[in-house]
């Protein structure tokens, strides 16, 4: 039942993960804490540790497919690398550079500082991304929303999240059908035609969505909706295994920091 759009398959993994039945608040707290740690400590070894640990959790414990995991990393990778490149390359006189090439009347160059900064940014960003993927690949949307509720995010935002999440799937399904119908009528032959077809499809989708919104409202009202969205939420107790992984990470972290301080790395 896995669709081939990858933004949908994160959701699919969230339900199939080996970590799905772990306590959601615990997972979220762990992931976010690690995220802050990685950024605050600014320590390359911590970043590598985090990257490996979180990847291990997603792949081995969560049972995500390696191919899909790598594909999922490519999207943030693009952004991270573009950002790193802009940090890496500087423009100017080229003094103190370790590498430079002429660029019109000035130079484009790299300094050891900019290189080091770029490397740090890449490592921090990637390890932060893996920490978040550990959370999103193992936690269904409904549970993430219940974590938000616990930290007192305004109810309006939670309601929007629930409904938008549900409707994303309906919209993509409708769009797929529209696209199939258009392709069968040669709507995607050539760039200009494709653009025109896509525009018409989106306009139609807007109208369909507005009509459907009215119908949804009716059906929610028909079941007693009185203005507050109330969904049943389930909570899993925190399990020993989950705590074990958290503690082990902390243990490794302390170990790495200690070795760095007292040894030579």
């Amino acid at each position: 039942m896995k669709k081939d759009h990858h933004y949908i398959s994160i959701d699919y993994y969230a339900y199939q993960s080996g970590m799905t039945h772990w306590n959601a608040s615990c997972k979220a707290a762990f992931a976010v804490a690690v995220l802050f740690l990685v950024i605050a400590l600014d320590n390359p070894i911590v970043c590598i540790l985090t990257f490996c640990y979180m990847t291990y959790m997603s792949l081995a414990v969560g049972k995500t497919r390696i191919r899909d995991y790598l594909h999922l990393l490519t999207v943030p990778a693009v952004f991270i690398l573009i950002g790193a490149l802009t940090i890496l390359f500087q423009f100017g006189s080229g003094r103190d550079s370790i590498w430079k090439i002429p660029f019109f009347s000035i130079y484009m160059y790299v300094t050891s500082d900019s290189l080091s900064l770029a490397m740090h940014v890449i490592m921090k960003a990637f390890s932060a991304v893996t920490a978040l993927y550990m959370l999103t690949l193992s936690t269904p949307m409904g549970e993430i929303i219940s974590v938000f509720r616990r930290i007192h995010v305004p109810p309006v935002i939670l309601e929007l999240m629930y409904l938008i999440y549900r409707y994303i799937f309906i919209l993509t399904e409708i769009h797929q059908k529209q696209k199939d119908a258009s392709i069968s009528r040669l709507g995607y032959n050539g760039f200009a035609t494709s653009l025109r077809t896509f525009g018409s499809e989106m306009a139609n989708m807007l109208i369909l969505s507005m009509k459907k919104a009215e119908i949804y409202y009716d059906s929610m009202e028909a079941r007693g909706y009185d203005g507050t969205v109330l969904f049943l939420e389930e909570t899993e107790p925190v399990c020993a295994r989950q705590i074990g992984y958290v503690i082990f990470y902390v243990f490794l972290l302390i170990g790495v920091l200690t070795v760095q301080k007292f040894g030579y790395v």
Partner: protein
Amino acid sequence: MTEKILEVRKLSFAYEEKEVLSDVSVSFHTGEKVAVMGANGAGKSTFFLNLNGVRIPSEGEILYRETAINKKNRDLLRKNVGIVFQEADNQIVASTVRAEVAFGPMNMHLPREEVLERTMQAIGQMNLGEYVDRPPHYLSGGEKKRVSIADILAMNSEMIIFDEPTASLDPVNARMLEEVLRQIEGEGKTILLSTHDVDFAWRFADRILVFREGRLIADGSPETIFSNAELIEKANLRKPVLMEVWEILQRSGKVSQDVHPPKTLEEFQEREALK
């Protein structure tokens, strides 16, 4: 002993200057099985939405168990009259099947244990046990339909309305749906459904309402309604197959004139076997 649950008096409903329902009067009692028929756009769906309080009549009134419905007690309708919409996707809002079926009871602000009890009972009734934690978008059409029915079962309404329940269902799923209707009937609930399937209405209903251009033009037993050729033509209907076949047999003398047409294929087979 049947009680009158719902009474509709001279109901009219207009939408943006256009009158969609005119002067409709009808009553519903416990245990009834009513099929509502009529051309597309005749006003059936709007009629249903009026019955459960989602739409407010422009004229006329609705009484629930002799209590006139007004702004303040509209919830009476919503709690006791449930609608299963034609498209399950138009009804399903939550991110797991369990949360979805619990939506109605949660909105009634019932205590959590009761919500869970009703939810799991409805889920069991519709054989959705293995799907409880699954998100609805990973279910097939037939499964989604079962979820939309479980949604309403969990609300324990006295009257359940099905808007074209067999539309887009394959024969196996349609048969399962009829099975579910039998179950619900067995619990003493009133069932109202709209359908274009004349043979299904013949099999299922003990009473048929016919709508045309917003007006209720007929209200009677299936035998009466389907014997009225003029009515059938006016309302874009046709005679049920079993009825036609029976009349052919009657005309050729193979069966007696006094015997009523069989309601189901099984009944027909039984009668043939007795000969």
